[in-house]
C-alpha cells in the first residue's frame, strides 16, 4: 500500500472517522482505523462495534492495499504537521511509514482482515432528506433522551417514517420531545420504526454539523445507515419497543399561555439558582396576564419573579423540574412559546407557535 495526500484534505475526514473510536476499549483493534486504498480512493473506517463511520476521499495512489493503524496517533501526527503539508504513506512489512518534509514516522499496524466489519443486510427502505433538516430534527429532539436508564430503549431516539413524514421522538419518562419533517414522497406502504442508540445519535449530529445537500437514510433490519456522499455512518439499532408516545401527548389542555421565550427563559435561569439542587423543583403560578415563578431550597433561600404573559383563565399552580423547562426553551427557535395545561396534575404541552411540526411534553412535579 502506498499513497500520498494533502494534509488539508485528509485531516477533517480523519478526525470525523476517528471520533467514533472509543478512547478506552478492550480489543486493541478497536483503537485502530481501517485504511483501504484502491483505484484512486482512500477509504478510512472507524468503529466501536455499535457505530461505524466510513469516509472516502481522493488520493494519489501508487499501490493498492489495506491495513489498520492506531487512530489517535495517526490523527495527532497529521494534526501537528504544517498546513498544506504533503503526506506520503507507505506500508513497509508490518509498519506504516508516514513521511512529510523532514519528518518520518513508523506506526504499528494490525492486519485489515482482523478489523470487525458491521454486517449489514440489504436496506428495506431508503429516504432522502436535506442534511440541514435531518440535523435540526436530531438537535431539537436529542436533549430528551434518557442516559443509562434501565429501560434501555429510552437511551436512544425513535426514528419513524410514517405517512410521508420522518419523525424523531425521544423521552426519558419525565419529558418528551417530538419533531417531524414532511418528506413529500407520498409515503411508503409499510411504516418504518427504529430506535438508534444514544451514541449513534451523537455521532449523527457530529457528522451533520459540517454537511450540506441531501443525505440518504437507509433502514435495515438491524441497522440504520446515513450516507452523505463523502461519509457513511452505520449504527446498530436498539432492540426494544419504544413507548406509545401518542398516548403521552396531552390533548385535553384547555388553558393556553403565550409567553415571550427570552423573558421566560431568563427568569427561569435566575430563579433556578435557588431551587433544590437535587430535585430542581419550581412552582409556576398562572394568573390573569401573569406567571409567577418561585423556588426555594433546603438552606431556606428563595427566589421569585413574575413575568407578564398572555393568559386568560382561572388561576392555576403547577410544579416542574426547572431543568426540563429550560431544556425545551433552549431548543425552541421562535420568539414566543405556547404552554398548554389542563390542571396541576397533568402534563404540560409546550409548542413553538411559529413551527407546526414540533412538540414537547413535560410531566408535572409534586412540590
Amino acid at each position: 500500500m502506498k499513497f500520498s495526500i494533502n494534509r488539508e484534505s485528509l485531516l477533517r475526514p480523519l478526525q470525523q472517522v476517528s471520533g467514533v473510536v472509543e478512547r478506552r476499549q478492550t480489543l486493541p483493534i478497536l483503537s485502530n482505523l481501517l485504511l483501504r486504498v484502491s483505484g484512486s480512493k482512500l477509504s478510512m473506517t472507524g468503529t466501536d462495534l455499535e457505530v461505524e463511520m466510513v469516509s472516502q476521499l481522493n488520493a494519489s495512489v501508487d499501490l493498492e492495499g489495506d491495513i489498520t493503524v492506531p487512530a489517535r496517533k495517526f490523527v495527532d501526527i497529521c494534526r501537528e504537521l504544517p498546513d498544506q503539508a504533503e503526506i506520503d504513506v507507505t506500508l513497509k512489512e508490518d509498519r506504516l511509514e508516514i513521511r512529510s518534509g523532514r519528518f518520518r514516522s513508523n506506526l504499528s499496524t494490525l492486519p485489515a482482515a482482523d478489523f470487525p466489519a458491521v454486517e449489514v443486510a440489504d436496506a428495506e427502505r431508503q429516504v432522502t432528506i436535506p442534511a440541514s433538516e435531518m440535523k435540526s430534527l436530531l438537535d431539537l429532539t436529542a436533549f430528551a433522551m434518557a442516559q443509562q436508564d434501565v429501560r434501555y430503549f429510552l437511551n436512544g431516539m425513535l426514528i419513524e417514517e410514517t405517512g410521508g413524514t420522518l419523525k424523531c421522538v425521544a423521552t426519558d419518562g419525565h419529558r418528551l420531545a417530538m419533531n417531524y419533517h414532511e418528506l413529500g414522497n407520498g409515503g411508503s406502504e409499510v411504516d418504518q420504526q427504529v430506535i438508534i442508540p444514544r451514541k449513534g445519535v451523537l455521532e449523527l449530529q457530529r457528522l451533520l454539523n459540517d454537511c450540506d445537500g441531501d443525505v440518504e437514510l437507509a433502514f435495515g433490519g438491524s441497522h440504520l445507515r446515513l450516507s452523505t456522499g463523502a461519509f457513511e455512518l452505520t449504527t446498530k439499532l436498539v432492540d426494544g419497543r419504544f413507548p406509545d408516545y401518542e398516548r403521552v401527548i396531552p390533548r385535553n389542555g384547555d388553558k393556553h399561555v403565550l409567553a415571550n421565550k427570552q423573558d421566560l427563559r431568563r427568569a427561569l435561569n435566575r430563579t433556578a439558582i435557588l431551587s433544590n439542587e437535587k430535585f430542581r423543583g419550581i412552582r409556576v403560578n398562572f394568573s390573569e396576564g401573569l406567571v409567577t415563578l418561585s423556588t426555594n431550597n433546603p438552606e431556606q433561600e428563595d427566589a421569585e419573579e413574575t413575568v407578564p404573559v398572555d393568559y386568560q383563565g382561572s388561576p392555576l399552580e403547577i410544579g416542574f423540574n426547572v431543568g426540563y423547562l429550560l431544556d425545551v426553551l433552549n431548543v425552541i427557535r421562535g420568539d414566543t412559546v405556547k404552554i398548554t395545561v389542563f390542571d396541576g396534575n397533568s402534563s404540560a404541552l409546550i409548542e413553538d407557535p411559529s413551527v407546526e411540526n414540533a412538540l414537547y411534553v413535560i410531566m408535572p412535579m409534586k412540590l
Partner: protein
Amino acid sequence: MEFSLKRSDLLEPLAKVVGVLEKRQTLPILSHVLLSVEAERVTLCGTDQEVELQTQVDFEAGTIQVQAVGRCAVPGRKLLEICRHLPADAELSFSLSDARLTLTSGAFESQFSTLPAEEFPSLDGYQPPQQMLTVNAVDLGQMLGKSAFAMAQQDVRYFFNGMLFELEDLQFKVVATNGQRLAVVALKEAMTEHQAVGRPIVPRKGVLELVKLLDGVEGEVDLGFSDTSIVAQMTGKRFVSKLIDGEYPDYTKAIPDQPDKRVTCDRGLLRDALIRTAVMSNEVYKNVKLSLQEDKLMLFTNNPLQEQAEESLSVEYQGEALDIGFNIHFLIEALGAMSGKNVSMGFSGQTSPCLITDPDDAQATFVVSPMVI
C-alpha cells in the same frame, strides 16, 4: 445593611472573588463571600484559607447608594450566578434583616441565608508586611507567566510546589523547578533603590491565582511580605497568599555555566517538530533523543510498540556530534513559555543539563536535565 448599585458595578469584583473559592469545601463559610458595606466603600472578600482576595466596588461612577452599613457572608457562587443572569443594565437592591439578605431587581426577588461576618476566616497567622516593593504589573505578570509551568505538583519536596521570589541587591527573580527542569526569570529592569530582601516561597495556587489576577492589569503592584504571607495590592484589589515554610535549595548550582556546544534555531519550528515526534514517544518515560551534527539537529522517539518518529531541522551549530536524551514535554513546555523568534540551547555533554535561553530576552533562563537513553 442596605444598599443599591448597578449590576455592572458588582459583576467583575464579585466574579474575581468567587474565582478563588474552592468548588468543594468542608466548611460552609468557605463557599461564602464576605460583603462589607461602609459609607463610601463596598468590599468583597473570598478565601480558601491558602489565598485570600479582596476586591472593591468602584464608587467613581456614582451609581452606588448606601442606606445602611453592615457586614455579612453570603453564598458566593449563587449570588454570582444570579447577577450573571440578570439583565445587563439591571439595578440591584440589597437589604439585610434577621440574617437574611434580600436581593431585588425589577420583578425578581430572592433571599439568601447568610452567616455572621465574625465567622469569616482571615488568613491564619497573618502578619502585616515587613518588606515592600513596587513593580510594574505587566512585568510581574510576564515573569510569573513564563516560569509557572516549571513548578512541581504534589511533590513530597513541598517547597517545589511553589515559586521562589528571590529579592536581593536590587534584583528580583522568580524561580520554579520540579527537580528535573528549572525556570528563572528576572525583573526586566533592575530596581534603582534597595527595596526588599528575602526568599519567600509562594505556593502553586497563590502563583496561579496571581497570574489570573494580573491578566489585563496595567500600572503598578505593591508587593509586601512577612514571614508567613505575601500581599499583592493593586487598584481595587488586595491579594494575600500564605507562604510555604521551607528553605528553597540553591538553584544556581543547577544552572550550567559556559556550556561549550551552542545551538541556535527557530523556536516555533523546533517546538512543532517536538510536538509531532512526541506522538511516538514512550508513554511512561516521554523520552526523545536529540542528535547534534554540524548545522543539523535530529529528533528521534520510539516506544515499546516499536513505533518511531524522527525529524531533522536546520540549525546553527559548529562542534562535535552529540547524542542526548530528554523528557520531551519538558522541552516543549520550556519552548512554549518563551516569546522570541529564536532559541539558543547550550550543551556540555551527554550527562549535563541543557541551558535554554531566548536570544531576545536575557531575563529568562531555562534548564532541563538529560535522561539516560
